[in-house]
């Protein structure tokens, strides 16, 4: 299949678009023009690759998970080690790219929203490195459960602002960041942390994470002389997933599986399983699947993982879902935590709780695989930040 979404208007099928107040339209147009003229510029690419190598530590390893493979006794499992990125998760691939773009656009004030705190830390990190003012909006409830990341951001010089409206989590932090942007649009660059938001953000953030899939393909060919049969990644907004999926979309032999957070269970009313329980709607600037009431009010999501605790999902995932190219499946809090413990013991890797959702799907997937197949799982982040939560499950 040929795949070239989004359209020039920012649509992935019927999903995406630019549903924002008029005041942001000139800013989005400015961003789009800057991005289009920059992304293929050799000088920019050289800068971006340089910092990914020297600062982020790319390429990240593709680790053969020997004991996990033996545990299931079926296909070989490889882990794409985004947990080894500087700051501990894939998020920094995107913040390096966007901050370099912000600098080229002459913007000196950076804002971001954060849920688990990983995107906030990644943004604070690049702002410290490049000497830019950084303001991070974070839900008060998330600040409580990710206190370590709050301290990290403050240590890095960011102004972390507590958001007490609504559910006090990622969706409200995003509302507040957009309100800041509306107010300070003349001098402010908004670094969105996932493949959500108005066009061109879903495309731009995806493009800065594609490096994950590109490296995976090269590394697997070097080790196995062939591509994967399955690629797995957890999906909240969906940035790590789109990063590893995208370079494989046209290759239909590769089965792509996105794992969403079911919370207490998809029918418990306490879930973040957007595809299982949601339907299309418009939030934070684009049309996509959403958890919403019969009246079109946004529902509160629930997941043990702050990074997946979001009632929406990136518009490109909605498109890939509807065309059937990616299969999206739910994993509960308990399944994820059990799997987190298993992976820690078997592989010596403590994954982030977000990432543990992808690992948990191996229980369902592996029995259907055969020994000559290859599974790649995007190990999107490390679990150090989650020790407070993890302790309660030990």
């Amino acid at each position, binding site marked *: 299949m040929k795949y070239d979404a989004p359209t020039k*208007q920012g649509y992935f099928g019927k999903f995406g*678009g*630019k*549903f*924002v*107040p*008029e*005041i942001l*339209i*000139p*800013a989005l147009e400015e961003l789009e023009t800057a991005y289009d003229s920059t992304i293929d510029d050799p000088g920019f690419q050289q800068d971006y690759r340089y910092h990914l190598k020297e600062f982020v530590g790319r390429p990240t390893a593709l680790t053969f998970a020997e004991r996990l493979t033996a545990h299931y006794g079926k296909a070989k499992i490889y882990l794409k080690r985004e947990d080894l990125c500087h700051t501990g998760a894939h998020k920094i691939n995107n913040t390096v790219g966007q901050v370099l773009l912000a600098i080229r656009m002459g913007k000196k004030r950076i804002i971001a929203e954060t849920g688990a705190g990983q995107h906030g830390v990644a943004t604070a990190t690049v702002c410290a490195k490049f000497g830019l003012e950084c303001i991070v909006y974070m839900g008060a409830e998330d600040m409580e459960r990710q206190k370590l990341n709050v301290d990290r951001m403050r240590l890095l010089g960011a102004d972390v602002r507590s958001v007490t*409206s*609504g559910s006090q989590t990622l*969706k*409200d932090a995003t*509302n507040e960041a*957009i*309100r800041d942007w*509306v*107010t*300070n*649009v*003349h001098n402010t660059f908004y670094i969105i942390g996932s493949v959500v938001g108005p066009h061109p953000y879903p495309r731009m953030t995806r493009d800065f994470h594609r490096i994950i899939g590109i490296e995976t393909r090269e590394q697997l060919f070097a080790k196995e002389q062939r591509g994967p049969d399955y690629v797995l990644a957890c999906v909240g907004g969906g940035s790590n997933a789109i990063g590893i999926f995208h370079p494989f979309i046209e290759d239909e032999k590769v089965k792509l599986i996105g794992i969403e957070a079911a919370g207490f269970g998809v029918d418990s009313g306490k879930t973040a399983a957007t595809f299982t329980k949601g339907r299309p*709607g*418009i*939030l*934070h*600037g684009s049309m996509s699947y*959403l958890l*919403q009431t*019969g*009246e*079109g*009010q*946004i529902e509160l999501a629930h997941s043990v993982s702050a990074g997946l605790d979001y009632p929406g999902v990136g518009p490109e995932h909605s498109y890939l879902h509807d065309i059937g190219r990616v299969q999206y499946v739910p994993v509960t809090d308990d399944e994820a935590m059990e799997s987190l413990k298993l992976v820690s013991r078997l592989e010596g890797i403590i994954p982030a709780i977000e990432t543990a959702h992808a690992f948990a799907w191996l229980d369902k997937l592996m029995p259907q695989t055969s020994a000559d197949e290859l599974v790649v799982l995007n190990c999107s982040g490390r679990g150090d930040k989650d020790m407070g939560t993890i302790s309660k499950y030990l």
Partner: protein
Amino acid sequence: MSLFITAGYPHPDETVDLVLGFEKSGADIIELGMPFSDPLADGPTIQHSSEVALANGITMDKIFDMVIRIREASEIPIVLMGYINPVFNYGIERFFKRAAECGADGVILPDVPVEESGYADEYAKRYGVPIICLVAPNTGDERMQLIDQKSNGFVYCVSIAGVTGTRDDSEVSSSVDTFIQRVNRKIKKNPVMIGFGIRNHESAMAISKHVDGFIVGSALIDNIRSHYPEKGWKDSLFEFVKELKHGK
């Protein structure tokens, strides 16, 4: 003078009464807010009124019932204002059809810029309920003309970069004059109403002297918030509305 009130705030039983009282106190247009859980262009005041209205069980059909009841008593133009998701969820065609049946005169969707208004435009035209578009201080000249073409009823001119809510005079007046001059050169088809940041008669007069009218929302909700449910809260609100229009 156009007045904004969130449907269902401070209580669903008050909305019709408030609208009729606003008309008696000098309002020429009513903007009836359809509350949304995530009002990202609104400041804390309208966020609060939306939360209260939703907690009061406001639904799209209840809002339409309010419009019908207002229509039984008054011919004042009613514009429904709200974010797109509840409208999309209700069904865009169904929404415009119902709005027309109930006697609403226009719709404002602040998170639908002209790029995305395509399919709403079609139903707006079919059912005769026009869409009122917004311009902002950073809207370019050509785009302003396009918005004027697309808009029907009036053009909503957002006075400053920012969310809804009252401001100090210095924040509003500094650069607004050159913006208004531009608006008056480029917007020819529609009347222009200006809003965002107005807190009293003086700020309303200062900002609207070269356009067709002004819009007040947050200042009314702040007024309700500080007096409701004390005895006489409604009288002092209507008094405030009269002052907004005529001064003390």
